[in-house]
C-alpha cells in the first residue's frame, strides 16, 4: 500500500519539507544567537544575505505543507475501499493509532505554516528585518512539529494493512459514541445553530469595528478563532446532517466524496483559511509600532480581515444553502 502514488508523494514531500526546515532552523539558531543589526561584521552581513533566500525557499515549502493537508485527506478518502468496514476517510484514519494524530498535527502545522507565511510577508516588507527573531522562533517550533508529523505519517502509512477491519464513520461520529467526536456530534442543534450564526455575526461586527475605527485587532483575531471552533463543531453537530439529509449521520469526512460534489474540501479550505488570516491580524498587531512596518502592517491587517470575511462568508453561504434547500428539517 505504501507504493500508492499519493502516499509516495506525501512521504517524499514530507521528507523534503522536514529536511528543508531542519536546515533552516539550524540557520535560525544562528540568527537567534548572533543577529545584531548594529554590527557590520562579516557574519552579520552573511546572515542578512542568507535570510532572504532561506525565507523564500521555506515559503514555497510551507505552501506545499498546507496543500499536503488536503492531499492527505484525499488519500485517506481514496484508500477507504481497501479496508473492511471503512465507508470514508474516517475509517482509513482509524486503521491504526497514527491516523488521527497525523491529521490533527497536519491541521495544526497547516495553521502555523499559514501564520508563518503572514509574518514572513510582513517581515520582508520592513527594511530592517523587524520580525526576524519571532519568525525564526516560530520556524524552529514548526520544524519540530513537522518532523513529528513526518514520523507519524510514515508510521501511519507503513502500518496500513489491507486485512484490518476498521470502524465506519457512523460509529466513530455518532452522538451515542463516547469520547470527543461523540461529544461534539451530540451537541444539540438548538444551541449550536444560534451559536454559529452569532459567531459569524460577531466576526463581521469586529471586522467592521477594525475597518472603521482602526481598533480591535486582538478582538477580531480571538473572535475569528472562536468562530472557527464553533463552525467546526457546528459542522459535526448539525451542518453535516443537512448535507446527508440523515438526522443521525455526523461524519465530517463523507462530504469530501464525489456524491456530495467534493464540497467538504471547499468547506474545510474556507474555514481553515479564514482562521489563519484571522489569527494573522492579531499576531501582527504587536509589531504595528515598528517604524519600518508602520505603513505595512495596517494595510496588511485590512487585507487579512477582508480575506477572513470573504472565506467565512463563502463557508456561511455554502452551509446556509444546504440549510435552506436540504430536504431535511431540524425541529426546535
Amino acid at each position: 500500500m505504501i507504493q500508492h502514488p499519493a502516499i509516495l508523494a506525501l512521504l517524499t514531500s514530507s521528507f523534503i519539507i522536514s529536511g528543508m526546515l531542519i536546515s533552516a532552523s539550524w540557520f535560525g539558531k544562528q540568527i537567534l544567537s548572533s543577529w545584531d543589526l548594529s554590527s557590520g561584521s562579516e557574519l552579520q552581513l552573511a546572515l542578512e544575505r542568507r535570510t532572504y533566500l532561506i525565507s523564500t525557499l521555506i515559503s514555497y515549502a510551507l505552501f506545499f505543507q498546507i496543500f499536503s493537508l488536503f492531499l492527505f485527506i484525499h488519500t485517506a478518502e481514496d484508500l477507504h475501499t481497501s479496508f473492511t468496514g471503512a465507508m470514508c476517510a474516517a475509517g482509513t484514519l482509524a486503521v491504526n493509532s497514527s491516523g488521527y494524530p497525523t491529521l490533527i498535527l497536519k491541521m495544526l502545522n497547516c495553521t502555523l505554516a499559514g501564520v508563518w507565511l503572514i509574518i514572513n510577508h510582513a517581515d520582508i516588507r520592513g527594511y530592517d528585518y523587524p520580525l526576524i527573531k519571532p519568525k525564526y522562533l516560530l520556524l524552529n517550533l514548526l520544524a519540530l512539529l513537522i518532523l513529528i508529523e513526518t514520523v507519524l505519517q510514515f508510521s501511519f502509512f507503513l502500518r496500513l494493512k489491507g486485512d484490518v477491519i476498521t470502524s465506519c464513520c457512523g460509529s466513530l461520529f455518532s452522538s451515542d459514541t463516547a469520547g470527543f467526536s461523540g461529544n461534539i456530534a451530540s451537541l444539540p442543534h438548538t444551541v449550536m445553530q444560534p451559536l454559529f450564526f452569532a459567531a459569524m455575526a460577531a466576526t463581521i461586527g469586529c471586522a467592521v469595528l477594525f475597518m472603521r475605527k482602526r481598533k480591535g485587532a486582538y478582538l477580531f483575531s480571538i473572535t475569528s478563532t472562536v468562530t472557527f471552533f464553533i463552525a467546526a463543531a457546528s459542522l459535526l453537530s448539525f451542518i453535516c446532517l443537512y448535507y446527508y439529509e440523515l438526522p443521525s449521520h455526523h461524519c465530517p469526512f463523507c462530504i469530501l466524496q464525489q456524491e456530495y460534489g467534493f464540497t467538504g474540501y471547499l468547506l474545510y479550505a474556507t474555514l481553515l483559511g479564514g482562521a489563519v488570516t484571522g489569527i494573522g491580524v492579531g499576531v501582527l498587531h504587536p509589531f504595528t509600532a515598528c517604524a519600518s512596518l508602520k505603513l505595512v502592517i495596517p494595510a496588511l491587517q485590512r487585507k487579512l480581515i477582508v480575506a477572513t470575511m470573504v472565506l467565512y462568508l463563502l463557508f456561511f453561504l455554502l452551509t446556509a444553502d444546504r440549510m435552506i434547500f436540504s430536504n431535511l428539517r431540524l425541529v426546535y
Partner: protein
Amino acid sequence: MIELSRVSKIFNSGKPSQYAAVSDVSLTIEQGCITVLKGPSGSGKTTLLSLIGCMSRPSSGRITLRRMEPDVPAGQLVDLEVTSLPERFLTNIRRSTFGFIFQQFNLIKGISTLENIMLPAYPTGQNLAPVKQRAVELLELLSIGRHANAPVEWLSGGELQRVAIARALINDPAAIIADEPTAHLDSRLSVEFMEILGTLKGAGKTVLIASHDPVVFESLLADRVVEMRDGQITGASAR
C-alpha cells in the same frame, strides 16, 4: 552625507583566489561637496563606488545615508543604513538617491538622446509629460538641446558625456556617482565636465568621482581628494 564604517569587500572569500578589493575603509562623504577618489587601477575606487551606490554589497562594514531622505516604502526616512537592505529596497534607492555616470557612458544606441535621458524615470511610474519636460530642461541646461531627437550615435564624445550627466539627473538624485568620467575626453572637455559638476554642487548635489585624471583631482572645484591604494585609504586632503 554618506558615512562608511569599516567597509570591506572580499571576492572569492575562503578560496585560494581570495581578493580584498576594499579593506576596512571608513570615510565620510559630505553633502553638497565634490569628493574625488584618486588612485591607480586596481586600488579599489570602482568597487568602493559600487558599494556606495548600492550596486553591490560589502563583505563587512556598514554604509549609512544621512539626511538624504532615501525612498523606502516605510515613508521618507532621514537616515538609512543601506548595507543591510534587501534587494527590493535597494532598487528604489539606486533609482531615486543616486545618479550614475559611467566610464563608457552606457547610452543605448538606436534611440534618441531624449529617450536615453528619460529611461531611468520609466520604472518610477511618473507621468510621461513632466518627465519629458524635465529631460528637455536638462538638455537645455547642458547646452545640447538641439540634439534632443538625434540618435546618440551621432553625438561627439563631449556631447555623449553631457547626455550621460542629464540621464543621471533625470530622477533628481541627491548624489551623483561618476566612475572615471573623463577617461574618454580631452583636456578641454574634461575641464568643461568639471565645471558642470561644479554647477551641480552649487545646486546642492553630493558628487563622488573615481578618477586618476589630474584634471579631476587637481581641479579647484573638488572639495576633497581621497587617495586609495590596494583597497585602502592612504590619504585625504581637503581644499
